């Protein structure tokens, strides 16, 4: 049986990054193909190529034996390719039926919306996937699982041939996940070709018929899921691809600085305990949603844990606010730089000195000269090439903005610095500079926590790695055991023996 949709020789580059190189992907009628790969493997890029959001630099897309191009998202939808994302792109304030039909609603002869057909059509489409949702209900009142149902009904309403499910279970409960499996079975029975993107191996083995593995933007292999073991898949995913160069550093680990014991949060994490030492880089690895960022936010006082204590040096501290955390010498460089880190309308130097103002001002008045000096000292250390420190931060590139956010916290002379995905979305040059700098900080005796989803980075930079899954610490990896396979297995919940 020939594939419904076939991609050959697809390449896509961004300035400084080859996101996809000569990859292939086949999707078959009535079958689920799992696309597997680490972060940065090119999975989301290929989804964007398939849905007309990105144009490939080279390669062909064949639909039903005919060569096609998707210059816009609408053209992909019209050709019958639909994606259902982690966070479904629907409208909370509209009804279920309106969401299903938005953009292609049935009309009356006068060109007005044909509400009866809209409602009945919605009810019929929902019934086809075994749902009895009320078409008139407001979408915002539904849970995520029901929103997925609506998104799928919408896909059916456009006669989609190819349905892409992009990590659909990331935010679902156990019961909802099983409902989603049933739904996938229904779609299979209707002859849809399904691309299923997931990090979870149990899921892949549960519902996929075929697999395709990408690694670092390249095609690694494909085949029937029944012909491959988990171990083989992990091996294909991580390969021997760690050729990125990380700064070498002398291990100089000192006394404990931060001890966390019995940390619990009502919904995000449980039973967290670990110790961080002077001069150490402690990596936190896990899948998206494993609770790493949530734990760090609690340690920084953004959210409050329900239970647990923190010891800094010799004192037990209770962290109830960011103010407490900063006073205790803990600082946090957040993951979402644009939203949580940078104040783009403020000049660079003011971004850096914002938490340090009590030190740079005198008698309640700001001293701009001192602020400039502090900002200059730390931007020079980070090798930041900005035209002027009184330039607006928003005018800098992403990598340089990240340096400014890090400089802001270093200027506080912290004891513990938490870096959450410190190199996410920045160019390779800045990445190397940030890595270099982390090594320097550790050498100077700062204790560093690095949350990262990039295995090469975690292994290349960390002295020790803590792996989290579903809000718990499930492994602590040191020395010989620090291999990509150990991390992937632990994070995905595959036993060592498998």
């Amino acid at each position, binding site marked *: 049986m020939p594939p419904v949709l076939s991609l050959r020789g697809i390449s896509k580059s961004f300035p400084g990054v080859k996101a996809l190189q000569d990859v292939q992907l086949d999707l078959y009628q009535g079958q689920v193909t799992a696309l597997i790969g680490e972060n940065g493997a090119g999975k989301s890029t290929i989804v964007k190529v398939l849905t007309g959001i990105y144009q490939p630099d080279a390669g062909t897309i064949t639909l039903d034996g005919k060569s096609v191009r998707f210059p816009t998202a609408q053209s992909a939808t019209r050709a019958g390719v639909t994606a259902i994302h982690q966070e479904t792109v629907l409208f909370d304030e509209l009804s279920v039926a309106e969401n299903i039909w938005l953009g292609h609603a049935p009309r009356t002869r006068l060109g007005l919306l044909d509400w009866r057909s809209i409602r009945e059509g919605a009810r019929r489409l929902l019934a086809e996937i075994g749902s009895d949702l009320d078409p008139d209900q407001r979408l915002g009142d539904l849970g995520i699982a029901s929103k997925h149902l609506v998104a799928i009904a919408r896909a059916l309403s456009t006669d989609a041939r190819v349905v892409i499910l992009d990590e659909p279970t990331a935010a679902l409960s156990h019961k909802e996940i099983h409902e989603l499996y049933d739904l996938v079975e229904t779609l299979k029975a209707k002859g849809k070709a399904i691309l299923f993107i997931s990090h979870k191996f149990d899921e892949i083995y549960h519902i996929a018929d075929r697999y395709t593995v990408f690694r670092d933007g390249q095609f690694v292999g494909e085949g029937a899921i029944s012909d491959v073991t988990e171990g083989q898949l992990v091996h294909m995913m991580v390969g021997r691809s760690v050729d990125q160069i990380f700064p070498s550093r002398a291990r100089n680990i000192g006394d404990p600085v931060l001890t966390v014991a019995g940390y619990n949060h009502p919904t995000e994490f449980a039973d967290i305990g670990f110790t961080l030492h002077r001069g150490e880089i402690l990596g936190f690895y896990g899948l998206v949603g494993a609770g790493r960022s949530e734990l760090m936010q609690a340690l*920084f006082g*953004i959210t409050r844990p329900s239970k647990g204590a923190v010891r800094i040096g010799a004192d037990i501290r209770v962290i109830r*606010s*960011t*103010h407490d*955390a*900063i006073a205790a010498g803990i600082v*946090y460089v*957040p993951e*979402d730089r644009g*939203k*949580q*880190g*940078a*104040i*783009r*309308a*403020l*000049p660079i130097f*003011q971004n850096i000195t*914002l*938490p340090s*103002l*009590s030190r740079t*001002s005198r008698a*309640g*008045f*700001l001293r701009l000269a001192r602020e400039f000096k502090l900002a200059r000292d730390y931007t020079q250390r980070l090798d930041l090439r900005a035209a002027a420190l*009184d330039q*607006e931060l*928003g*005018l*800098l*590139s992403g990598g340089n903005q990240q340096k400014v956010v890090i400089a*802001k916290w270093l200027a506080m002379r912290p004891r513990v610095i938490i870096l959450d995905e410190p190199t996410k979305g920045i160019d390779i040059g800045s990445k190397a500079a940030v890595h270099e700098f982390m090594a320097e900080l550790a050498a100077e005796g700062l204790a560093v926590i690095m949350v990262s989803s990039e295995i090469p980075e975690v292994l290349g930079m960390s002295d020790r790695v803590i792996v989290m899954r579903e809000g718990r610490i499930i492994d602590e990896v040191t020395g010989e055991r620090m291999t990509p396979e150990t991390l992937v297995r632990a994070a995905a919940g595959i036993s060592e023996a498998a």
Partner: protein
Amino acid sequence: MRILRHREALLGLAILVLLVIVAARFPAFIRPASLVNVLNDTSPLILLAIGQMIVILTKCIDLSVAASLALCGMVAALLNGAGVPLPLVLLASVILGGALGAVNGLLVWKLAIPSIVVTLGTMTIYRGSIFLMTNGAWVNAHQMTDSFKAFPRTILLGLPVMSWIALAAIAFFAIVLTRTPLGRAFYAVGGNPHAAVYTGLDVGRTQFWAFVISGALAGLTGYLWVARFAVAYVDVARGFELDVVAACVIGGIAIAGGAGTIFGAVLGALFLGVIKNALPVVGISPFWQMAISGSAIVLAVVFNAAQRRQKGRIILKQVDAP
């Protein structure tokens, strides 16, 4: 920052052009005494615009300023009638205004209600309280002491006290905004509230202080207004909050928060003040005045949007450069 400065220069130029046009027909309009009169007449707007601009900086808006002004003005008039000495009356106006602002600020901070809703509500409540206090009765000139009425008009070094108060407020809050941690916090909180939280700033508390400042300035202006016009009643300065917001918008205060300068707000107020004083002199009807003020607001917004597009281009250029 350079673009903003440029923008203020432009607004200053617009005011000059306006003065030149008017002077071409009525040279008397730009005689010093006449200009002093324009400044004095615009002083209440300047005072309220300073407070409003700080509130807008923090991503909020204060629609209750004119009602606070009226309430504080009425209380000042009643205290005066009860024989309270003038310095205490002044102090009471400022404190009451600050307290009214604190109510707004607390509702925004502790209950996280959008400021436009909070101040729309308190606007009505504050005005309603004046009626409850007086049963709708007016306090007229003959019920006020002479010193109460004379203070804002007293001439000191060629300027009335009311103008001196406005100038002092400009200087004071210019220092607060550019030279104190609180001033910096106003910009940071409005520029990116999430990042402000992650930097250890308390967003709600910062917004609270912005409302207190706005209220206190409204309280001070309440006394000045009632004393200058020598009358206090329920409808004093009704609708004035819109002029205040307009002055800020014309002055280039970003309505999304985090950007703008006090001099922008002051020039915005002066621009409206010149229009209001000059057009009757030239013989243009009040309806045209409204149309011209309105056009100025729309132009200011268009100008802001155009500036933002220009910034986008600068970013692209920098990314392209190696």
